[in-house]
Structures are given as structure tokens and as C-alpha cells.
């Protein structure tokens, strides 16, 4: 079986884990540190977690593939129950009731629930009786995804909830019409443009787009007038309701983050204040990356990294120290490695003979990609601040173990793909 393991993926995985650790070492090194195996230090602990991951890999690879498929419903139900149980037994850390206190460590069920939901979606869709083109089945599939989301949102942990939406890619891959994606994108676009430019400009923009559309396309397509008008009205009402939602549903910290991201604040004095308060992380992280330049300051030479200027720089903001110490060479290298890694995984998913394996693969890839997208996007100032880690890179034992397990479950399926026909 080891011969059929996709070694290229394993190699890329090891590369990411290695670079991740190098940067954790740099960000958490102190004058007093001596050995890299000193488990009182964070980099020492991470080294321990990496070792634990390797043990986990062996366990995962030695399990039967059918184990995961057979028990996926059980996993899912256990996850949902444990998420619901948080409302009663949950432990609050940093404002979010997302943990169970198990004494020796804190367990975050939403991490495990990601894997379980990915398996459950795959299980449901691969069922011979499921036809994703039927609205009823679409509804069921969406419910499988939404139930954990609805349980996680009130914790509140919007970052984790966001991850689950990536599982829609599985549905899209398996036949959910693309217009759903189109509508979702349109909704996001309307939301952002309305916030940024206001209702009036969005109306004007819509008007211009519609008339352009009629002007150029009328000859080729028959556009039914009435649905188009309804569509426009829908767009306008969404646009009109954006401000209400923004001001009444969102909390102040979310409004601040969006405000900063879309640079809604024009007053330079207030802007300066925002930079020092809620925008502090983003500002420091951008500055740290910027100061790296093309070549970077060199390993262990990052002044801002050493001075601990970027908060959470060994966890969520680890990429900023890559930017400072390794420069553009380092950051673009990591981006390229991630891109190749993901493309390779998509390729592997596509070569699966069994529907379940492919669907699970897609779910797992989507989860990894959205972590990577949101995390790096946040660190380099493209997206608002949402605290989720960079897979394989950020410091943290449960994250690393979870991502590793997800990945190697998939590689286990892949290694088995020829047998199972």
C-alpha cells in the first residue's frame, strides 16, 4: 500500500510542515532558549505535535477505508451532538464558547465536525438514491452543511462557521447548478458594493449594466423581460437592506473590520486611530511583510518578528514572519507550494473511481483551501480579520493533527483506489 501512496503530496505536506516549524522557531525563539527539543518552548511543543502527527498518519493509513465510510453517519451525529452540548457544558475561551474542558487539554468539537461533515456530505451524495439535481435532495445536502453552522454561529465563532460553506464546492462538483454559486457571488458583490459605494451608485451601476446587456446581447439571446425585472427588483431590495443588516445584525467589531477592509473611514485622524486599535493586527502584519522586501531580512533577523510586533504571529499571523524574514522570495515560494499542493489534491480527487472518495476529497480540499485563502488574505490585508489558522503552518497541536488526519484519510482512499473496483 505504501507504494501506492501519493508521495508527491506527502513531500509537499512535509515541506509545508517543515517551513511552518522553521517560522514558528523564529517567532518564538527567546534569548533563554537552548535546545530545539526543549518542550517548554512553543517550537519544542510544535516539534512534539509534528511527531504526534506522524504517529497519527500511521494509524490512519493502517485503518480500513471502509471504516470511514461506514461510520461517517455516526461521526456526523456525534459531532452535531457535541456541538449542541457546548451550549450546556461548553468552556468559554476568548469570548467564544467553543471548547470542552477535558482537564489536560481543551477540545474544540468544531474542528472534528469539519471532518465529520465532509464525510457526511460525501456519504449522502454518493448514495445511489441521491440525485443532487432534485431540489429536495439539494435541500437535504444543504441541511447537512447548515446544521453545524447554525450550532457554531451562536458560540460565536463565525470563522469556523465560514469554513463549512466551502463544502458547497462538493455539491457544485457533483451537479448542483452553477447558478447557485452565481447567486451567492452576486449577493456578496451587492453587499460589498453597497457598503462601499452606497445604494444610489449600485442602482446606477445596475441600470447601466442592464442597458449595456440589452444593447449588445438582444440579437443573440431571447431574454424574458419579466424575470429580468424581478431579478433587478430583488437586487435593489437586497442592496437597500444591506445597511439595515450591517447596522442591526452585525456587531460593532464586525462593522469595524468591514469598515477597515473597505476603507469606509475617510477621516485621517480616525483612520490613524483605527490603525492603532482594531486595525492594529492588519497594519502591523502588512508593515512586517512590506519591510521584508524582495530578499527578506534573513532567518532570525526579522526585527518586527523578534520584537513581537505582530500579535499571534506564531499562530494565525505566521505568514507575516515569512514575509519579513524570507521576503518576496519566501512568500511567493510558499504560495506556489500551496497552489501545487492543492492542484495535486484536485487531480487525485478526480482520479478516484469511487464517488465517495472523490466527494470526500473535494470536501477536504475545499476546507483546506478556504483556510489558506482566508488566513493569507487576512495577513496580507486583502480580507477582513477572521481568526483561522494556516493549515500545516500555524502553531497549534489540534489544528496540525486535524489537518494531517483529514489529508491522510484521503491519501488512504487514494492508495486503495485500484483495489476497490
Amino acid at each position, binding site marked *: 500500500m505504501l507504494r501506492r501512496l501519493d508521495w508527491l503530496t506527502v513531500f509537499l505536506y512535509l515541506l509545508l510542515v517543515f517551513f511552518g516549524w522553521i517560522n514558528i522557531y523564529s517567532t518564538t525563539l527567546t534569548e533563554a532558549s537552548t535546545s530545539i527539543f526543549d518542550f517548554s518552548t512553543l517550537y519544542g511543543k510544535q516539534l512534539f505535535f509534528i511527531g504526534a502527527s506522524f504517529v497519527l498518519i500511521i494509524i490512519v493509513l493502517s485503518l480500513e477505508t471502509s471504516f470511514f465510510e461506514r461510520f461517517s453517519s455516526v461521526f456526523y451525529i456525534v459531532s452535531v451532538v457535541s456541538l449542541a452540548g457546548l451550549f450546556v457544558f461548553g468552556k468559554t475561551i476568548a469570548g467564544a464558547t467553543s471548547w470542552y474542558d477535558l482537564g489536560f487539554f481543551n477540545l474544540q468539537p468544531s474542528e472534528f465536525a469539519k471532518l465529520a461533515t465532509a464525510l457526511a456530505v460525501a456519504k449522502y451524495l454518493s448514495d445511489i438514491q441521491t440525485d443532487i439535481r432534485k431540489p429536495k435532495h439539494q435541500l437535504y445536502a444543504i441541511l447537512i452543511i447548515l446544521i453545524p453552522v447554525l450550532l457554531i454561529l451562536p458560540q460565536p465563532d463565525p470563522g469556523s462557521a465560514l469554513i463549512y460553506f466551502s463544502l458547497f464546492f462538493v455539491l457544485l462538483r457533483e451537479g448542483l447548478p452553477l447558478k447557485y454559486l452565481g447567486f451567492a457571488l452576486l449577493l456578496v458583490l451587492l453587499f460589498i458594493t453597497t457598503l462601499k459605494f452606497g445604494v444610489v451608485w449600485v442602482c446606477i451601476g445596475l441600470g447601466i449594466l442592464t442597458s449595456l446587456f440589452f444593447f449588445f446581447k438582444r440579437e443573440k439571446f431571447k431574454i424574458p423581460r419579466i424575470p429580468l425585472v424581478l431579478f433587478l427588483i430583488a437586487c435593489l431590495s437586497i442592496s437597500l437592506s444591506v445597511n439595515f443588516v450591517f447596522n442591526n445584525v452585525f456587531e460593532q467589531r464586525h462593522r469595524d473590520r468591514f469598515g477597515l477592509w473597505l476603507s469606509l473611514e475617510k477621516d485621517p485622524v480616525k483612520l490613524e486611530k483605527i490603525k492603532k486599535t482594531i486595525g492594529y493586527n492588519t497594519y502591523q502584519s502588512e508593515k512586517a511583510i512590506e519591510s521584508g522586501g524582495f530578499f527578506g531580512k534573513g532567518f532570525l533577523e526579522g526585527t518586527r518578528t*523578534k520584537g513581537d510586533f505582530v500579535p499571534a504571529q506564531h499562530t494565525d499571523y505566521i505568514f507575516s514572519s515569512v514575509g519579513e524574514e524570507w521576503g518576496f522570495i519566501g512568500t511567493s515560494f510558499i504560495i506556489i507550494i500551496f497552489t501545487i499542493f492543492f492542484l495535486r489534491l*484536485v487531480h487525485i480527487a478526480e482520479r478516484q473511481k469511487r464517488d465517495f472518495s472523490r466527494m470526500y476529497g473535494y470536501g477536504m480540499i475545499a476546507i483546506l483551501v478556504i483556510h489558506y485563502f482566508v488566513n493569507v488574505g487576512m495577513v496580507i*490585508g486583502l480580507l477582513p480579520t477572521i481568526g483561522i489558522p494556516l493549515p500545516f503552518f500555524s502553531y497549534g497541536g489540534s489544528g496540525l493533527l486535524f489537518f494531517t488526519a483529514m489529508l491522510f484519510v484521503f491519501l488512504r482512499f487514494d492508495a486503495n483506489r485500484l483495489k476497490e473496483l
Partner: protein
Amino acid sequence: MKKILLSSIIVIIGVTFIGRLSYLQLFSFSPNQILEDPAIKAVYDYPERGYVYDRDGELLVGNQPAYDVMVIPRETKTIDTVEFCNLLRIDKKEFIKKMKRAKRYSTRLPSVLVPQLAKEDYARLQEKMRKYRGFYIQKRSLRDYMTNSAANVLGYISEVNESDLRANPYYRAGELKGRTGIEKQYEELLRGRKGVKYIQKDRFNRDIGPYKNGKLDTLPKLGKELHITLDKTLQEYGERLMVGKRGGIVAIEPATGEILTMISGPTYDPALLVGRERSRNYTKLHYDSIARPTWDRSILAEPSPGSPFKTLNALAALQEGVIDADTKFRCYNGFYVGKTKRGCHCGGGSRDLNSGIFNSCNAYFAGTFRKIYGKYKTTDEGMDAWERHMESFGLGNYLGTDMPTGRPGRIPDKAYYDRAYGDNRWASSFIISNAIGQGEVAATPIQLANMTAAIANRGHFYTPHIIKQIDGKASIDSRYTERHQTTIDKKHFEPVVEAMANVYRYGTAKWLKIPDIEIAGKTGTVENFTRIDGERIQLTDHSIFVAFAPVDNPKIALAVYIEHGYYGARYAGHIASLLIEKYLKGEITRTDLEKKMLEKTLEHEYAKPLSGEPFSINEYNW
């Protein structure tokens, strides 16, 4: 489409990220980041500012330690405020106010609590300082003046401001920089180069060790010692004579162009602009818009030169060949321009070059001036020729001294009159006043002194300068060792110098002779006007005197300009005579003359135009 959807998104994300990263790391990246990096603190080590000595090696400017009491508010504990306030010599209210201000600035960073403690206070405080946590004494270096004179030459230093910081990246906020005089001109030599230590900080601004193990740190480079050309004794003596008078004096060593003394009256003690009272004193001086003590008259005032200018016209006429020493003009107690008569004090009669100069005959020089023009077909050409001669003496343009200020004076040219009267709407009669140094010509005292030095040298001069040695080496800028030749041949100087010597022997300055020293000089009495309530009103004439001595081997050439001092032979002539004696003999034999000059003031004269009442000018008695 479905199969490539996720792959396309992955690629698009990758491209977007690399785009954003290249924007951040390639385009926004600024290479000068070590100073902008909040994680690196630069700690500077300031070298002592260079000392300044006079031409004989006497110390003029040194440094004195000053002690600032600093506070880091966060580190302070409850203290015995009463005792501490007594030690600092401030009252409790002030102490509380100052502490509040320091806290407002920063609780972590040091602020100055009490600046520049006196030495005795420092000694008493030093013993008890350990009792006050969070307070410490920081030593600073301030200028220490060994003379109370030459403020205009020495200049002062003060903290850099925003525009200095923008203009020169060397300076950091709070550092000192030369503002005027040699402190400004030789700022880079005097200040040396500060050393720097880079220290790595964490986000709480705590030191966590040297940056790159001190690889980029530098040691301070000491400021250089400057010897300047001033003669301390002469400068101090001159300033004593100038008390109660306004004006400027410049004395030059003709053989080298070294400035021996440079006095502006009224002046102030340079020590006023040092220490705790600096800012109050500066404001007082700066806003005295009547006496204007900060306005260096020796180099910035531009009066008409008056009669001393006649010597140059005589030289120009000799050079042009339009007169010789025996050419005579008749003086009718004045001369005629068209039908109007202009006056002359010389007593009238037939005048040649010699008596024209020593009696300062206006008619003689009007005639001479006309002859220069007469030589050429058009007034324009004559004007150009005349102007070339005048400018070769360093008039009409910036002299290029090593003082950071200066004025060009004025030698009017064709373009000037065209502007004033309209193109070609003027004739030689418009410019005849220039013959006697009135009218449009203007020169600063230092230009007059330089012109006198050129005559003393019989035809050449060295650009006046204040720098003599840098760190004991006489390697100064070649601009100040380069010989400037005037357009006048050497032979033409003898009759003019002879006539100037006769000014002392029998002329306008015959009462100012110094025993055993032959002096050549020329008086000037310059009409001047002001505006009171929009009306042009004549004021008492300026008293001007130029002289050099000894005649045959000149050691000193000087120009004295006293505002509203009336006859050239009065204030200016007296002061010039005393300064020459002081410089050449080292002592004053004519104590009556000295006493008179030390006691007399012109304050009553300066008060006249401000009194708002009618007043008389050019009073006979003095």
C-alpha cells in the same frame, strides 16, 4: 466546467496573493527602513561640539555641561515632594504641572522635568538622587562663551525644527543645529558626527538586545576646533565704543582678507541665547523691531557709501585716462546739473585730484564722473565701463564671504535705470549722484572695508573671510586664498592713496591723527531719508569712514558706518581712529578721544523720527 472550477479558483487565489505580495514587498518597500522600523531604536552618542578660538588662539566658545532632570513617569514611586521641589528650586504646583505634562507625553518614555540645572543645584541634587526612583539626571552640553562680544559672528545654536528634519536626514528631533554666524556656516565641522547604537525593541518598547549584535553601530566623531580670524581684543573694544550707537564696523587684514573685527551695533551678549532663559531672551531680541539687535548691520546694512566712493571714481577716471592727477575742476561751492545747483562743503575754488579727495569736493567728482561718460559715444557704454570698474572691487554683488548671510549692495546699471525711469527715459544727469556715492549706489560695511583693503593693496583683494584654521591646520577653502585683481592698474593708486593720507594730514580727518602712524582714509557724510506717515523726510546724515594703516605697509583696512552720526569725521572717524590705534599699538594714547567715544550716544538722534514731533537734523553741536 465543474471539474476545473476548484482548480481555477485555487490558481486565481494564488495569482491574487502573489500580486498583493509584490505590491507590498516590491513596490511599497522602502529601503531606508532601519530608521522607520519601530522594532529598532537608535541611541545616539553625541560628540562635543568643536571649540572656537580667535586669531591669537584665545578661546572664544567652549562648552559647559548642563544637567536636565528627566523623569519616566511609570517608574516613579511616592516621594517626598517637598524636599524634591526644594532641591529642584521649583514650587509644588509647578512640579505637579510638569509631572502631568510628562505623563501626557508618555508614561514609558523619558521627558525633561527641569531643564538645565545650575551647577550648584546639580551638586546638591546628585547626592540625593538615588532616593527618587524614576528620576535621573541627564548631562547635556551647552555652548559656553568666553567673551560677551561677537554674537553676530559666532551665531547661536538651537533645536532643529520640522523643516530642518525634512531637509536633512542627519538630524533627529531634539538635536541642535547652528542657526547664524559660524555656528551655521561651519555646522558640519563643529558638530562632528554622532555615533549610533541600534537596539532591538519589543512591542512594549523594551530593549531586548543590540540589533545585529552591533554590526551597524558607529562611534561618534569629534567636532573640529576652529580658529577664526577675529581679534578678540579689538572686537571687544569696538563693541564698547559702539554702545549707544547703531551701525556696522568691519576691519580686514588687507594682505590676507582675514576679517579682524566685525561689529554690529546694537549687539547682545551671546550667552543670552544659551540655557534656561534662551527662549525668553531670543523673543526679546527678535521682536525689538526698532534697534534690531539681531540684524547684523556690518554685513546686511546697505547705505549709500557716500564720499569714500569718490576714491573709486577717481581710480576709474585715471584708468580710463580721462583725467590725470593734475586735472582741475572748478568748484562754485557746488556744481550745476542743467540749471539746478548741487552743493559742496569743500570751500570752493580750483580742485585737483589731491585736494578733491582730501577736501571731499563734490564738484570735482561730478566733473570726473562726467568725463568717464564723455569718453564713450553713448551713456550706456560709459555706464558699462564704469560699472565694470566698480564691480571689480567687490561692489554690487554678494562678496562670497563665509558668513551665512550677506547683501549685494548696488551698483546701478542700465537695466536698473530702465526699470526705474522707463526704457531710455533717463540721461547722465539722472545718475550724477553716483559720482559722490549718493543716489543709487549702495554698499554694505563689509564691502566698503573690502574696497578699502583693495586700495590698501594697490589693486587686489582677497575675499573677506572669518575662518583661519580648522583643527589647527590652515587648510581653508581656496576661495579665500585666491587673489582678486581689480581693473585698475597699480600706478593709478599712488595719487589716490596719497590724497587719502592727506585726508588725515590736512583734510576732513586732520583732528584724528595718531602719533607715529600714517593713516589713509576718507570721510563720508551720507544723506538719507525715511518715511513718516507716508511723507519723505530727511534724517541726520549717516557718518561713514574708511581707512587703512599704515599707509606703506597696510595691516588693517576698515570701514565704519554709524547711522545718523552726521559728519564722517565725527563718530565714524573717531571710532576708526581708535580702532586702528588699538590694533596697531595695543593701547590708546588719546584717552580724551576714547572717553568721548565711550560716553557719547546717539540714542537721542534715533528717538527723533519716533517721537511724533517735528525735529531738526544735522545739528552742529555734538
